[in-house]
């Protein structure tokens, strides 16, 4: 048993910290810390800074512009960027599509798309969920029918995160209705500028525009845009879901959120004393903190095993469930900490450069919206109930 990071890992952490101190613009980290909305340009700016250092696609193979980092280095990096309140790396092109292309794409596809993901030429979005295909994703109906050198795509995707910014969408489409439903799915790359595509915003409960519906009406897609083989898309989709689970626990984000909560609880007065000394609030905080301390070690155990070649299955699902529960619990406590001041909803305060009259504690403006927004964590990426199914399958083997 040795729970210490190696000297190399400690040095690496320092290197990441030094980089963040020097290169992470305060304007961006302030926005993240204050819960303000990031614009497309903000995310692109941060991507470009990381790319200049060669750290944007840190999990890709070196030959395609990756870093060759160990799983532990990647975890350290994720933790430090979260703690520094850096914008998150937009995952759709970098973490979702790229690994699939690298493993299953043609040489032409790799050479064409990967550099454009790296330099920000293409913004990708994910076309998986449909109105009738959520947890039961394989029941998807969006159809691609072969017509000469094209597919003609008809159907609807939904919950398409940041699709309003996207140049391209990677889609799961149905190319066969024969046999098992998983065996008629293909993985298709579609230019969002193709005629017949319509993007409609979905306003979420926090009032923000984060996700969209994408409609396809007789959209012509060149067959060259098929990834891998026709009707093998489910294999690629599953690979995408199991790949890159190093950050599934969101440990860095939770550490940052807990530190913020601690600060708030220390300074916020309730019933004549600091909130941190209110016995019931202190107990709620301590329970989350202990769960997080345990989670950090659970995460490291899974990473150490992954580094030794053990592919996590049930463990990834456990990390997803508990990691999201902890993050949700932290937004719940921030909401409680604000007391009455969780209620005011001054939407302009969520935008950069707001200089209106502040209301209540300066941290309180986004906490209720954050809490509502973070309900998504236990729903997306395989709902926490689907994760329990995965755990059960793996341990019960029934």
């Amino acid at each position: 048993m040795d729970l210490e990071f190696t000297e190399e890992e400690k040095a690496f952490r320092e290197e990441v910290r030094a980089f963040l101190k020097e290169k992470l613009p305060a304007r961006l980290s302030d926005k993240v810390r204050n819960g303000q909305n990031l614009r497309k340009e903000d995310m692109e700016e941060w991507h470009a800074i990381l790319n200049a250092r060669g750290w944007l696609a840190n999990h890709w193979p070196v030959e395609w512009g990756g870093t060759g980092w160990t799983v532990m280095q990647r975890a350290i990096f994720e933790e430090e960027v979260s703690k520094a309140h850096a914008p998150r790396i937009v995952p759709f092109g970098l973490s979702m599509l790229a690994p699939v292309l690298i493993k299953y794409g043609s040489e032409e596809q790799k050479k064409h798309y990967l550099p454009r993901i790296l330099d920000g030429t293409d913004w990708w979005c994910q076309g998986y969920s449909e109105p009738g295909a959520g947890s039961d994703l394989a029941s998807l109906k969006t159809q691609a029918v072969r017509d000469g050198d094209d597919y003609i795509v008809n159907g609807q995707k939904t919950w398409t995160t940041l699709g309003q910014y996207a140049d391209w969408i990677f889609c799961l489409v149905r190319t066969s209705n024969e046999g098992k439903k998983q065996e008629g799915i293909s993985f298709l790359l579609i230019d969002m500028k193709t005629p017949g595509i319509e993007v409609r915003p979905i306003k979420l409960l926090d009032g923000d525009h984060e996700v969209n519906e994408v409609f396809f009406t007789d959209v012509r897609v060149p067959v060259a845009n098929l990834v891998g083989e026709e009707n093998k898309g489910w294999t690629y989709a599953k690979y995408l879901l199991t790949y890159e689970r190093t950050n599934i626990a969101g440990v860095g984000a939770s550490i940052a959120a807990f530190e913020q909560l601690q600060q708030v609880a220390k300074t916020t007065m309730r019933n004549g004393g600091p909130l941190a000394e209110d016995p019931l609030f202190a107990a709620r905080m301590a329970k989350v903190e202990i769960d997080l301390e345990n989670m950090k070690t659970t995460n490291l155990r899974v990473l150490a095993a992954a580094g030794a070649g053990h592919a996590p299955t049930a463990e990834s699902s456990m990390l997803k469930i508990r990691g999201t529960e902890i993050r949700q619990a932290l937004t719940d406590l921030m909401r409680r900490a604000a007391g009455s001041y969780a209620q005011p909803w001054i939407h302009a305060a969520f935008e950069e450069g707001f200089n209106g009259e502040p209301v209540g504690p300066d941290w309180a403006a986004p906490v209720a919206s954050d809490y509502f927004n973070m309900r998504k964590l236990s729903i997306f990426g395989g709902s926490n109930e689907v994760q329990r199914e995965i755990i059960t399958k793996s341990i019960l083997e029934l």
Partner: protein
Amino acid sequence: MDFSLGEDRQMLVDSVGRYLADTFDFSAREKAIASSEGWSRAMWNGLAELGVIGAFFREDAGGYGGSPFDIGAVFGEVGRAIAVGPFLETLMAGRVLAATGRSEELAGVISGETRITFADTPMMGANGSPVAPMHAASNGDGWKLSGGKGVVGYVAGAELIVVSAQTDTGTSLFLVRGDAAGVSIRDYPLVDGGAAGELTLADTPAELLGSDGEGQALIDDATAAGLTALSWEAVAIMDVLRAQTIEYLRTRKQFGIPIGKFQALQHRMATVALEIEQARSAAINAAAALDKAPNVRDAAASAAKYTIGTVGKLTAEEAIQLHGGIGMTWELPLSHYAKRLTMIGHLLGDEDEHLSRYIALRQAAA
């Protein structure tokens, strides 16, 4: 970073596990807990010969190990076999002997010749409040102790007892011989097997351990080690309960199919499995912090006790519930694992006490 036990420690674990599997199976355990002493001295002596007790203590104290992970690894095997005996008491009292330079007595403990226990819990009276607080006074020809201690593990037949008492200066620790004048014991079996007793001392001669009034730091150190040990024991018991419950879900059929096919049961099992991994991490964290500064050590120990308390209750209750009626029977070893796991919650403070202590420690550090 390496989460394996390491080769030497794995060998120790394997030999302890084999010894307990061979000599202390369920029927041997039944015999031991039904005996007048409530445990098996033969098993204890066998373990001592294997070097198990020595593994609790460092080489400079005459032991063969003593690292937090040595302690954890051995207690894991104790849990896997739900072995009864003064493991916790020996660890805690022995740690005090080691810290106060009593190498002669400790050597006897390590060899298995000398039985020792640790008496720190106040005696409770019929009305639910503490009675007969232990106090110590020195009258020129040595210290004398009077008062009571409650639920002292394996106190009957112990040759040595480490006792906490108040002096004019403060909390102090003393070494009492089991056959000393004024020692009286009312012993009884425990609900999860094993034995304990109410200890009453009346003008009993005792030797001061360490310095007068400075016993609390020794108690805190012994308690941190005890909490770490219990955490590892508890996680091992959880592993057994999990394996047995999974096997039952796979094989027990109702409505024509294995009950593990029912989603209501599947999700409960998945939650238990997840919580056990968190408990394992808590136990590892406690061990990793045991040699650190007292506030860091105690926060990790309390976090672990809180975690194994809540997860232990969940695991024990779910194991019984998912087994249905058979889980209620004495005949099934499972129920004895569930009882032991639940009773670990009652040792050295429960999850509420440790959550409170954790909060206090964190607030003091902030």
